[in-house]
């Protein structure tokens, strides 16, 4: 029998709505006792119960009270109760998604096509392209000359995985990675494609993967955000595509599920630090005064929102310690710097962000997404992809290795990849030394590691031109279903009522979990 529940007003139809479920303080398993008592000791007990956690703002309370206050999987109406558990036992407790924005070519990375070497500068057979509509960029080309990878591949590890010479470090992870070669998507241009990968839909307004996870599982750390995004400095500034806040927005879910952007520099969280000249003791005094007055106000007005605000100021004060501690790398041992390389000391680099991701993982942050741009190599691919690989290879290797050494990889799902693939034919002039590749939605490669995914395997196959998938296609929505699955979430049940529909990350077209890649 559940304790008396409260049902806050249903705010379903906001553009960015509150979650559909509101656990009460009773439902949160790891609420610090003192705090519970503080709440319950208030003469507002009944108000509080009446208003439920909504009064606090959900993420706020989750971070405040719940070490793991999993929000429940709402179906239609608010769903809740003491049995706060995912749909089934999760394999992954956190995700780190290394988003290679702009889309690295599969030919120079993970989809080894030796047969192409003999077809240099041959025309792509019409039958392979099959009347496909191309982008406006190669549309004007008179011919479509085949461009084999200029980079060599070698086999690595017990799995004998073929890895491009561009990734000497990642190659060492061969037996840890599950490489998917048969991803495909619906969009042929960046903006819709990247939005589809991050939110499941090509149009703005939908929640991102991290927001869905936050909504579904709640916070595991009381003093850090649930969903963190970092953008990375780029080693060079060619082939750069746009990002936007909509890639990590909460869409129609409550804004509390949107990512918090961790920024390079002194204020990793926006306006985290006190103004110059305000030491912590002054801030403490200031907040004490504010909260004191707020309590007086509460006595007069009785609005539970006032209590919520009091708590949020306390929370903010604590974050002023916890976040700088997070960003303080001084206690990292020398081995860290050997592993990640010297650039990891420079805030905002991809290496720095990877190290930060590990620190976030250690602290239980649910979803960390790192964006690295400039993979959009329409021209000068050989030169530019090498620069990008050099920047990203070692930190990527370091992150996975570090997680493994710390025993975190087993329940951390690491994902690496872009928003689509690239064409086998050269965009622009093909020469022995250089070429470019246009967008290609029909197939591309990604990899995953940890989080209950089978290590050392490859999944899916493409034809000799890596143009079409010949075996085991994986649509974006299948990828999303699989990711949710690893967190113990059934993608058909993780829903939120919006515009009268049970909205899902995977949308309306049926999606499938790729069970073959799961350990």
């Amino acid at each position: 029998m559940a304790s008396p529940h409260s049902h806050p007003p249903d705010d379903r139809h906001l553009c960015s709505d509150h979650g559909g479920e509101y656990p009460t303080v009773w439902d949160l398993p790891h609420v610090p006792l003192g705090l519970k008592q503080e709440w319950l000791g208030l003469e507002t007990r009944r108000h509080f119960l009446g208003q439920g956690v909504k009064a606090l703002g959900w993420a706020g309370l989750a971070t405040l009270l719940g070490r793991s206050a999993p929000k429940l999987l709402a179906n239609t109406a608010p769903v809740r109760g003491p049995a706060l558990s995912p749909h089934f036992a999760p394999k992954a407790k956190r995700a780190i998604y290394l988003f290679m924005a702009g889309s690295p070519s599969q030919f120079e990375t993970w989809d080894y096509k030796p047969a192409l070497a003999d077809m240099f500068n041959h025309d792509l057979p019409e039958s392979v392209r099959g009347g496909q509509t191309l982008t406006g960029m190669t549309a004007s080309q008179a011919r479509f000359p085949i461009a084999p990878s200029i980079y060599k591949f070698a086999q690595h590890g017990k799995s004998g995985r073929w890895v491009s010479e561009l990734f000497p470090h990642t190659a060492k992870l061969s037996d840890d990675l599950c490489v998917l070669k048969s991803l495909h998507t619906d969009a042929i241009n960046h903006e819709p494609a990247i939005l589809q990968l991050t939110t499941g839909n090509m149009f703005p307004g939908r929640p991102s993967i991290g927001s869905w996870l936050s909504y579904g599982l709640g916070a595991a750390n009381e003093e850090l955000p649930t969903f963190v995004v970092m953008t990375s400095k780029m080693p060079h500034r060619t082939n750069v595509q746009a990002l936007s806040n909509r890639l990590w927005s909460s869409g129609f879910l409550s804004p509390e599920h949107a990512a918090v952007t961790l920024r390079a520099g002194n204020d990793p969280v926006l306006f985290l630090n006190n103004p110059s000249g305000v030491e912590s003791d002054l801030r403490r005094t200031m907040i004490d005064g504010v909260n004191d007055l707020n309590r007086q106000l509460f006595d007069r007005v009785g609005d539970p929102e006032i209590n919520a605000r009091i708590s949020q100021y306390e929370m903010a004060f604590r974050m002023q310690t916890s976040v700088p501690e997070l960003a303080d790398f001084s206690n990292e041992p020398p081995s860290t710097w050997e592993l990640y390389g010297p650039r990891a000391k420079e805030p905002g680099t991809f290496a720095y962000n990877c190290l930060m991701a590990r620190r976030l993982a250690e602290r239980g942050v649910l979803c960390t997404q790192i964006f690295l741009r400039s993979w959009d190599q329409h021209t000068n691919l050989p030169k530019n992809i090498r620069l990008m690989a050099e920047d990203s290879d070692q930190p990527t290797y370091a992150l996975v290795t570090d997680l493994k050494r710390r025993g975190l990889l087993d329940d951390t799902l690491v994902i690496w990849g872009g928003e689509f693939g690239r064409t086998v034919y050269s965009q622009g002039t093909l020469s022995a030394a250089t070429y470019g590749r246009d967008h290609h939605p029909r197939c591309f490669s990604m990899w995953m590691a940890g989080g209950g995914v089978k290590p050392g395997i490859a999944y899916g196959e493409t034809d000799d031109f890596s143009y079409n998938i010949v075996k085991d296609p994986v649509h974006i929505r299948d990828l999303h279903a699989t990711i949710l699955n690893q967190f113990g979430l059934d993608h058909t049940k993780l829903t939120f009522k919006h515009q009268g529909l049970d909205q899902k990350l995977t949308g309306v077209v049926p999606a499938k979990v790729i069970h073959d890649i799961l350990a």
Partner: protein
Amino acid sequence: MRRFTFFGISALSLLAILVQLGCGTNQVPTSHAKVGATAIPPASLRVPPAIGAKLSFNEHIQPILAENCYACHGTDPSSRKAELRLDRAEHAFKKRDKGGPAIIPGQPDKSPLVGRIESKDPKEVMPPPEAHKTLKPAAIALLRRWIAEGAEYQEHWAFIAPLRPALPEISSAANPVDRLVLARLAAEKITPSPEADRPTLLRRVSYDLTGLPPTPAEAEAFLADAAPGAYERVVDRLLASSRYGEHRARYWLDYVRYADTHGIHFDNYRAIWPYRDYVIRAFNQNKAFDRFVREQLAGDLLPARTLDELAATGLIRCNLTTNEGGTISEEVFVNQTRDRVEAFGVTFLGLTTGCAACHDHKFDPFSQRDFYGLAAFLNNTVEKPWDLNIAEPAPVLRLPTPENTTAAELLFGERAVTQEKIQLRRARAQELTAAWLAAGNRPKPVATANLELRLKLDEGKGDVLKNSAPAAKIATFKAETNPLVWGENTWLWPAMRMDILTRITLGDSGDVEADEAFSAGSWIMLRANPGGGVRTGTGNGTLLARMGDAKRRGGAGWDISQSGMRIIVSLTPGAAPATSPGAGEEAAKANTVAVAAETDPASPAAALVVPEPPPRGLQIATKLGQVTRDEWRHVFVTYDGSRHASGIKIYLDGKLAETEVRADALTPQDSIRTDAAMHLGRRDDFNPMRETRFQDMRFYRRHLTPAEVARLPFEDLAAEIVAREPSPAKWSTDEGFLVMDRFFLGEIDPEIRGLSAALAEQNASFEKLTKEGTATLIAAEKETPAFSDILKRGDYFARGERVEPAVPHFLNGLPAGTPRNRRGLAEWLVAPAQPLMARVTVNRMWQELFGRGLVESAGDFGIMGDRPSHPQLLDWLAVEFRESGWDVKKFYRMLVTSATYRQTAAASSAALTRDPSNRLLARGPRFRMDAEMLRDSALATAGLLVKKIGGPPVKPYQPPGIWEEVAMPESNTKTYVPDKGDGLYRRSVYTFWKRASAPASLETFDATSREVACTRRARTNTPLQAFVTMNDPQWVEAARKLAERAVKASPTTEQRLDFLARVTLARPLVAKETAVLTRTANEFGTKLATREKDAKALIAIGESPADATIPVTELAQWTLVASQFLNLDEFLTK
């Protein structure tokens, strides 16, 4: 997993269940009532419906059916199972092919529906297990009872036009709002709250009407005004303030997703802020709301008499746009239309229309056809899909500088008169054409003699093209490689577009020698230049040719190409180049230079285009400035067989084009014959033209006279139509457009010609007058008939049936006599029979003041939306608003002067428990203010707020790098550079809104990115918000300036605290508060006394200089005290 509602639907049903279980009627449980094993939450009192003797379909049954059944048994045929529809009586009671009716009224036991929902067999039970829906016993009981009572269906409440309900007789209340609210409270046996104290009330109403706090002087004046009507006088003062319009506009801009950037990819700046200023002005002028709607939706069709009416159409342009290289313009066009329809649906109708882009709505009767019917109203505007990454993608209105405004307005008025005359004349097109024909006139055809090829290209589908020339050698041609794309665009008829790489071989046609005359051409729409994008092709190529490459008889043949915005006609001999001294070489040089200069500058891919060979034989080219892209042009070439360049003529739209000769060297021996096949859109071996549209392509083996060519674009086609069907009334839309609009009005009617000339002159004068003016994006209607195609699954490639503009079939029809364009759409919205717009609008106005609407789901009045808490009040307000002449200020005045609004927000715990979200309105509204109100309040209390109205967007403080993190390097909104001076302190409604990175501090307080229409913001409460109000330089500086005011105003701590309270809270402090604040102020003072450096650092924050007359540590101390005030819940809350 446990649920705590019964069957996952609204609380309506909960209450109904309670009724059934004897919990009383019209009485909401005040404790945690329990039914079975499930606790009933107290907040379930959401929307208790009136329970009569009989269940109501709308209130009790539809919610259950919608939630559990409609996904498979609703309006959408594509997902319908077992041929069963449960949303309408005629379907539910109908016998089906497989089985009888699902519902037999009056006989629950015989109704298969009941059997299925009560079944325990997983194969039988409904909803099926895989639907993850379970009907609870209470819901089943309700359905049973409803069927037993006769299973009476009802139309959804929101789709029936509101009628003004009778007001309950309540002697104590004069305001109709109060009478309806009190009647409801009385029924619930709840006592309303007393009026809030004067400071609270003043603060509330000041914020609600102006978005700003009252000044201490205003507070004192109000307190001192003991005469009756003091409050009403305050309301009138506030309504008269210019701040009122700014505040109201801020909400509206959310509803219509106004922003200062394109939104996608480059996310560049775009010029549309004059639209924002229009909205502010409209509210301040108290423009009637119906006019406000008309102007925004259709200002260009009114016709606009004032600049404002045209600037208003910026609404149509608020959608996101893109210029991403590689996108397909038609896809972009379709997406933008979809965005418009969705935003229109949410904002004006309170309907969620988006799903119907792909399939019929599953819950509302809104069909896919309805979606595309609305789309046809909204997509017939002239702007191009690609925005070119520029600030001013046409059409724009240039606003005159102040000194020219009077002249421009005058001219505008005159122009409107001309436009109106044109519209009236056009409206009579059918009558006039019929009269002209009746007088014996006929359009004159062009003789079909020697017409070898005529591809009308009107097949509409497939890849087989019919040759309709009377003496056709070859009857059909087949398009190869990539499929043809049909119907995206209409001109003479729905048009064909070649896809990338489409090849249309015309076989052995067009085989002529240089001494044979021929004439050839087509209606053509050159591919839009995906402007400015790097790595994009230029779209040069061959339109029509019989010519091969050099290997094919030395490249002999004839060719009509487009290159560098010229049309070039070549007759090339197969032998070695003829050497007419000078001409060839010079022309070659000229050609190279010309192409280089004319090629789209941002297109390195120019290298990919096959370079033009130096001209040999004959070549002429149109001079620059005549050829255009992305619009229909009739391009026609005649050659007289003279072997001289002078024998070639190029016509554009039937008129001789200006040309220059590039080569004129063809000897009598030269042959241009070739074995290469004739092609549309390319030469046999190369020079393909991509994504070009063609209609009515012809090849004559004779020399057409200029008079004949002049008739080709329209008259010849009109002649064909009239010959077949002389009665205008019987023409199709396309035929009528062609004969009446293009031919009769365009070429015959003298009056229209005169008016058009006058209009052109007025436009030119206006352009001259406003050349230096600020541009703003506006809407302009295309001349071609409006249409949209039903897209299967929403795919822009999968075109289905073509539909003309139409309003949703289940709502009121277009009022008689209104045109089927945006003007008609606006008239439809404001018609008395329209059930939604007035309700949706008054509901949002209510929401702005009370924090939530009478219908909570402000953007969804459909079947899955929330039911109104006070249906009668909502209808009364809707009718009142309309019948008041859509008087917006009067409406707000009525709301804020109601006793309902004036109640205190303080609540007892019993009241909170009973009605936590105040749905019954037994107390006043109290909620955290929106982001903009907070920032503006901080600035106002600091005395920093700059009160200038309007103008370009401004950039207040934001941390460095905030845009770079996401922007493309090429974007002109890549780097955020805060303004200096006034720009830092303007009201937030003027803050630059970049969609990819909305103002961060505002976003922290739930402001949206303005990518999709938002009719209701979230209201969260997070620690990140505390960081903004404590640490954002904007707030720190405001605290310091506020501190300066306090320190200078009063000598003692107590007085200063009192000053701060009066400025920020509009009230004096109570002793208990003063004690706390004195203690903390002293603590700040003591600590800072030894930290002068810190104190200096703190007061140095912000652009404004610190008051040097105040000691540094004292100012720092009071900055912290002021900051405390700015962080109080009371300050952040209205």
